[in-house]
């Protein structure tokens, strides 16, 4: 029986200042292969399909079980996590490109610092007094926990920003993930004490008003986080807050 192969077309770019080009690879197929295994195969034998020597592919990865948020890339035109992208589910040749909404580092590796900075902007934390002993936390109704927990599984992977038409060069939109974090912290009993500050941080440039309701985010989210629900809820709070601010002058 002839050996089965996997054909990949990968967009290469050796640094942000160099032009991009494509390279094709042919790898030996094995059961349960994912894109990470393919990239490792190439690292062990960095030779293109037409026999040309090349360099291993640079890419972000860490946990390999879709919980750290590192290995997002555009696979066959759709942004997804490479670790859970199984070769057998992908038509060939499989094209792989870096995400486009973040500064490129090299090949498939990008810099998502913007998202971490945005978390800072909206104060996505509970402002505790200190780590010294202060007794138990507030009681939380199971209903709140069941709403909050799915939101708190957000890995800051950036898929929702990649698919959002409002995230572009002319716009500093923080994106759905960040808005959803505001909802999470504002629903926690202690976090709610500082809800206004977080909403305030979402008013103005790059804030919630930039959302144009394309709803791509919720479809792209690998953790099925109800992002549009979060946006709607935070949006109501933002309207209320800015209207009140206007009335009170």
């Amino acid at each position, binding site marked *: 029986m002839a050996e089965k192969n996997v054909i990949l077309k990968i967009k290469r770019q050796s640094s942000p200042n160099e032009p991009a080009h494509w390279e094709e690879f042919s790898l030996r197929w094995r059961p349960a292969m994912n894109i990470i295994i393919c990239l490792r195969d190439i690292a062990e034998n960095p030779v293109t399909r037409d026999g040309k020597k090349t360099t291993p592919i640079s890419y972000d990865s860490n946990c390999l079980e879709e919980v750290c948020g590192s290995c997002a890339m555009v696979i066959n035109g759709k942004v997804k996590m490479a670790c859970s992208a199984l070769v057998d589910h992908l038509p060939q040749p499989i094209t792989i490109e870096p995400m486009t909404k973040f500064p490129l580092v090299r090949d498939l590796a990008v810099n998502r610092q913007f998202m971490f900075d945005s978390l800072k902007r909206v104060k996505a934390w*509970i402002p505790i007094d200190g780590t010294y002993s202060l007794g138990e936390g507030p009681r939380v109704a199971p209903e709140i926990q069941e709403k909050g927990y799915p939101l708190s599984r957000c890995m800051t992977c950036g898929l929702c920003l990649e698919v959002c038409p409002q995230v572009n060069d002319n716009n500093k939109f923080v994106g759905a993930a960040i808005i959803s974090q505001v909802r999470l912290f504002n629903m926690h009993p202690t976090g709610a004490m500082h809800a206004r500050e977080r909403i305030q941080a979402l008013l103005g440039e790059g804030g919630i008003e930039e959302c144009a309701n394309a709803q791509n985010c919720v479809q792209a989210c690998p953790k099925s986080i109800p992002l549009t629900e979060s946006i709607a809820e935070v949006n109501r709070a933002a309207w209320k807050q800015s209207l009140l601010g206007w009335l009170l002058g």
Partner: protein
Amino acid sequence: MRQPKIIVVGGGLAGLMATIRVAESGVPVDLFSIVPVKRSHSVCAQGGINAAKNQKGEGDTTAKHLDDTIYGGDFLANQPLVKRMCDDAPGIIDLLDRMGVMFNRTPEGLLDYRRFGGTLYHRTAFAGATTGQQLLYALDEQVRRHEAEGKVKKFEGYTFLSAVLDDSGVCRGITAMDLRSMEVKVFPADAVIFCTGGIGAIFGRSTNSVVCTGSAQSVLFQQGVDYANGEFIQVHPTSIPGEDKLRLMSESARGEGGRVWVPRNPKDTRAPKSIPENERFYFLEEWYPKYGNLVPRDIATRAIHRIVYQEKLGLNGQAAVYLDVSHIDRETLDRKLEGILEIYEKFCGVDPREEPMKVFPGMHYTMGGIWVNAVDQATNLPGIYAAGECEYQYHGANRLGANSLVSCIFGGGLAGPAAVKYARNLEKGTESVPSTVFDREKKRQDDKNQALLSQDGTENPMTIWRELGDIMTEHVTVTRINKNLQLADGHLQALQARYRKINLSDRTKWSNQTLNFARELENMLLLARVITLGALARNESRGAHYKPDFPDRDDANWLKTTRAKYVNGEIQLTYEPVDISLIPPRVRKYDAAK
């Protein structure tokens, strides 16, 4: 007064906790991490975190938590610090709760607790089946807050290369490499806290993340920091085998009622659901009636190996057994275990709510690690501290499930203030150290990079790494035989020789992941030898260290800590007594209540 400066290397649970504690004391802290800290390996912890809060009215106490931990660790852990950890655990849960962790709740709005391996109490607080992720995020958020206030400076995308030691062997800072520009830079500090996690990559495939190479620990070892109990490696009983990684199936699946079984007849090819109860062999429940599916991990792992390799009862003759949660109702599964069931479904294409999962043991955790003192996480080199999985203090010969998260937070919380105190008491700070000390260390690291980038060789680092993983997995995990360990060490030395002939397929100077990996590989090879030689020397069976030729625990000769030293380029094994001042050792068995 002189303002000291602290560095933390590693941004998992231990590193973040240490960072917070240092920042709270008003001392500036630089935090180094290979990946953005929010992507650290702690996110992979699933099942929960232990604390004897006794919220189920079972009469649980911190003394019982201590006893379970010491007994589970087969009496190899020094007991006083473990006691402090167990005593502090309820307060740690309170703290995490205050930080907003979305722990599962009871109808009364209190934290819910589940059962875990090696205990008969409901002692494990949890946030679905992604508890590590949830705890890491809570600490990450607190660190971000301190960062916004200017108290913490993050260096994400940097890898630690070496400690800078002055002429009297005192740590005065580190060298690190910017993984984008590949520049080696010097960072002076008065004290450095290492929280660099596990060593899974040494075994090729494990449940660990890509960054868990043990490279930092190995570098420190080569610079004179001792390494303790390296031979104690935990193999988790239930993981999904994969070519790139062994994906963990949390013990919480069994904590919530999951059962491990195989068909009694190995030739039974029926779908698992149609095999009647009496034709299923629930071997853990039969062999260990008291603890059943919740025996400690070393016991469950050896039982599964026995089923597969001796009883020849593996599924379809393969290395796999069933982990079955399909009898539990869907609503409970989704509320308590969704995170892990989703992983199984995504990677195996089968819904574990409907069909039993196929699992097999996989390398998971290192009980051993950097030697630290019995007081405050200090290593044997002044100015160097360690906390979290990278050190050896809390788990003895086998770690109990859900004790890792608590040990990370406790150890990190201890190391932070200890490093601050040390730095404040220094007569002369790092600013008084002549620049030549930093320059020579930088040069040593630059030269290393230059040599790797320019040398022409025949060996590929990925190939050497794969062979390293195969050797370690075959000979230095579940069952250890002296002649095989000797063989393994010979292979490792041969790999070290081949390493000297490696050829980097990438010689560029921008974001060169091959160069970084090559550097890590050299360190992995050495640490692999520390583990193997430690295992070879220890002629007994204790916790996760099992030798069929020496099947019993031997307290007369081996109730002692292995303390490896690196002297003149050679690994030397020394031993020191274990502090058993609180609980006298007794026989460890799980077929009856202890």
